[in-house]
């Protein structure tokens, strides 16, 4: 599986004041957002935007391929359900291996940001 920046394709689509997601963080954000319970794709993107105080936004063009990829890897699973406004929607939820993956990625992320922080402070 080749890895590439999922957002880089749509550079310039970003709205002002928002930060482009660094490579590899999209999966982490999605997994984390799904931790409390099953969500559909739109809710995932809304939630990330809200929680990050509108700083982070996930483009749909990246979100859905990412969801499908995570599903293929078995970290999340999809099932059809009914949305708040009574429409049929596809809900994603974390699987057990998805939870493990989330822990792993969270830890890696913490280490990374800590290290970057130290370099920035110390230099």
């Amino acid at each position: 599986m080749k890895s590439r920046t999922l957002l880089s394709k749509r550079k310039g689509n970003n709205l002002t004041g928002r930060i482009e997601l660094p490579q590899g963080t999209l999966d982490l954000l999605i997994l984390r957002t799904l931790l409390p319970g099953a969500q559909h794709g739109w809710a995932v993107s809304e939630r990330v935007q809200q929680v990050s105080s509108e700083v982070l936004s996930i483009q749909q063009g990246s979100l859905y391929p990412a969801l499908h990829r995570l599903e293929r890897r078995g970290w999340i699973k999809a099932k059809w359900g009914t949305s708040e406004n009574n429409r049929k929607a596809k809900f994603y939820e974390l699987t057990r291996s998805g939870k493990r993956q989330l822990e792993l990625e969270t830890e890696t992320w913490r280490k990374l940001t800590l290290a970057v922080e130290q370099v920035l402070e110390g230099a």
Partner: protein
Amino acid sequence: MLNDLRYRVRALFLRRAVEDELEEELRFHFDAEAEKHMRAGMTLEEAKRRARMAFGGHEQIKEDCREARGTSVIETTMEDVKYALRQLVANPTFSLVMVLTLALSIGANSAIFSVINGVLLKKLPYPNAERITRIFLSSADFPKFPLNPFDFLDFRARNRSFESMAAFTRGDVQLSSGSEPVHLDGFYVTSGYFRVLGLQPQLGREFDFNAEIPGNGLQVILSNRLWRTQFGADPNIVGRKITLNTQPYIVVGVMPAGTEHPGNNYHAVAYGDSVDVWRPFPFEGSSNNRGSHYMEGIGRLKAGVSVEQARAEMNAMMAQLAREHPGNDSGWTMLVVPLYSEIVGARQRMLFVLLGAVGMVLLIACANTANLLLARASARQREIAVRLAMGAPRLRVVRQLLTESLILSLTGGVLGLLLAFGGVRALVTLLPTDFPRAHDIHVSWPVLVFTLLISLLTGILFGLAPAMQASHTDPKQGLQGSRTTTASRHQNRLRSTLVIAEVSMACVLLVGAGLMLRTFLNLVHLDPGFHEENVLTASLSLPHVQYRTDDQTAQFYDNLTNSLNALPGVESAGAGSDLPWTGYDENTGFGIEGKKAIPPDYFHARYHMATPGYFSAMEIPLLEGRFFTEADRKGARNVIIVNRALAQRYWPGENVIGKRITGEDEPKKDSDWMTIVGVVGDVKDQPNSTGAEPALWWSEFQVAQPDMSVVIRTRSDARQAADGLRAAVHKLDPALAVADVKLMNQVADASISAPRFTFVMVSLFAGLAIVLAGIGTYGVIAYTVAQRTQEFGLRVALGAQHGDLLRMVLMQSARLVVPGMIVGLALALSMGRVMQALLYGVSAADPLILASVAFVVLVVALIASYVPARRAANADPMIALRSE
């Protein structure tokens, strides 16, 4: 991992459902987004617009999702395939021509490969068959000679190279069963014969050493086929007595189905499931009697011993035997031949020539298809330019075009396989009767794999050049060109080279076909030295038990030929020890009155027996003296008839009638001598033998031979004599089997079946090749003519004559065909050596054949380019000027 696989499989096979779900999921997202904006107070229109903006390219997202699913390679390929199929269906004639030519050439290759696979590649059906070897004597006069039984015993006892060694010799029998006696093909074998082959009886056991002692020999091992057909597969057959040659034999074993006879040379029975019974060989008489040779040696080498080592040891043993038995055992060297080479060796060259020929046909088909695809690729330049301009990567275009050619070649391959199924069946019936392992020739798994491989290979071979070239299309030029797009000079050169290659290979095949035709005609029109029309033959074998004395045997054949001569429609009837062209090879040394032979066995000849009517029935001409008569019987003066070759070799320029020879080392009495009473014309061993061997005939009534071939010449259809023959035989001996009832025509035919087969096959391939080369030439010329329509119109407008244009186009075609022809003829000359062994009476550099091939190629090229040339000559100047 498992999840991944399940996901991909679902995405691939439930593609429609997965796509629908994706569509629905994205629509939900879009609606939710729009709703959010409406809640913020926007109008429906405004909200939708904002949502669409945030959403980005709907199709692009879908494409990315598909890629994320991990099935895009397969999906792209499926798209390519669909697109390619649309393209091919859009040009049905073009596609049909290509698929058919590919099917024919791939099918021909699969068929020939089936033969190669069955005959050459498939292992012999014996365990560790590579260690089995045949053992022969060899001398200058007799390059491959059978062994003497007592020499064999010494070899068996003394050798260290062989794990086991055995000998066998032909010994047919008659089975008395029910109404009519049955003739069985049988062999005498020494103990351990089947161990050498690595086979074991399915019932009972093989002969032990005791069975070799004279008097213990009334034992028999049956073939599985005989056991089933004659004995109802009786499971308790071992120990039962059956009647062979009117004597009671104990069945000691039954060989399993699939027991193949390894083939033999002396009184040959072809390799295969061709033997009915085996009996133990009894070593009778004095072990000092080393003069007669009729045992076929076979041995299994010890692991690690090479054929060369075994041969050296055998030669050392033979040298020792020559010291122990000077005279008979001197002057020989030993041949140790791997069984595989012995069985298929003689046919290898022919098969490789056929494989070469059919391979060339495939190359021509490739060149042809590449050419047509190149022509089409330039016609499709605009389409490709559009695709490139729209951002399709070049690799994607190459892949697309390769997909097209692979579809062509695979379709051709599948059709070809169907052709091969039918072709192989036809081919096997065409094969020479003595062709080894013919029953192993099937369209089997290796053939299927081979077909798939060559289909893929040809698809890539003929598809790659056009695809690469097309992908180099410059989108700007391709789109700009207002005129019909013109091929680059580079492309034209490639196409011309392909045609030249096609023509040259077709030339090689045509020369091959011409040579085989001449060979075949030479053999058909050869003066055989006898006349095979209207002759019926059959073989009889008088059992020793009933016909104990020579007088009884002589009396039988005298009575039989007399009653046959009395049959209505019979011109003359006789019996001989053998028929011409059947591989008969019985030899004797002799002494000549008043001449001293140096070395000892210098005077030798094929020996035969004949009744008085034999020569006239076979129409072998009498050159001097007389034929045998009824009076040439026991007690009368011993007489012989010789052939011209013998007379000329031993009495050059002399009159040989009345000359005497002897079989005794020290002739004393008058009866030790045999007087030459007649000289007959030469008959060669085989139609393609270089010359006739010296031969002599004894009178059957003086030297009675129990196994004879009956020969009946009739005035009209000889088949009608068959019933009369059976009736005459059964009147004399109701228990006698009449075997191998055949027309002499069939016998003669069988002897030239190998060259005929090669001729038919090579001609088929050559015909296919020249048609393909014709299509190739036509394609290129027609294409360039189409490209130059305007130029031609302009020329006409400027006053060019009809004939000028015709000549111009024909010259263009000549510039392709003549170089191709020259290269082809040169190639054919240099490859002549390969063919020479298959030829008879014609040189590989036969000028007439080379000239005829050149002529044929020119005529085909002329026809192929005449149609486009006429089109050019009839160019309408108005069209040319208007379109400018």
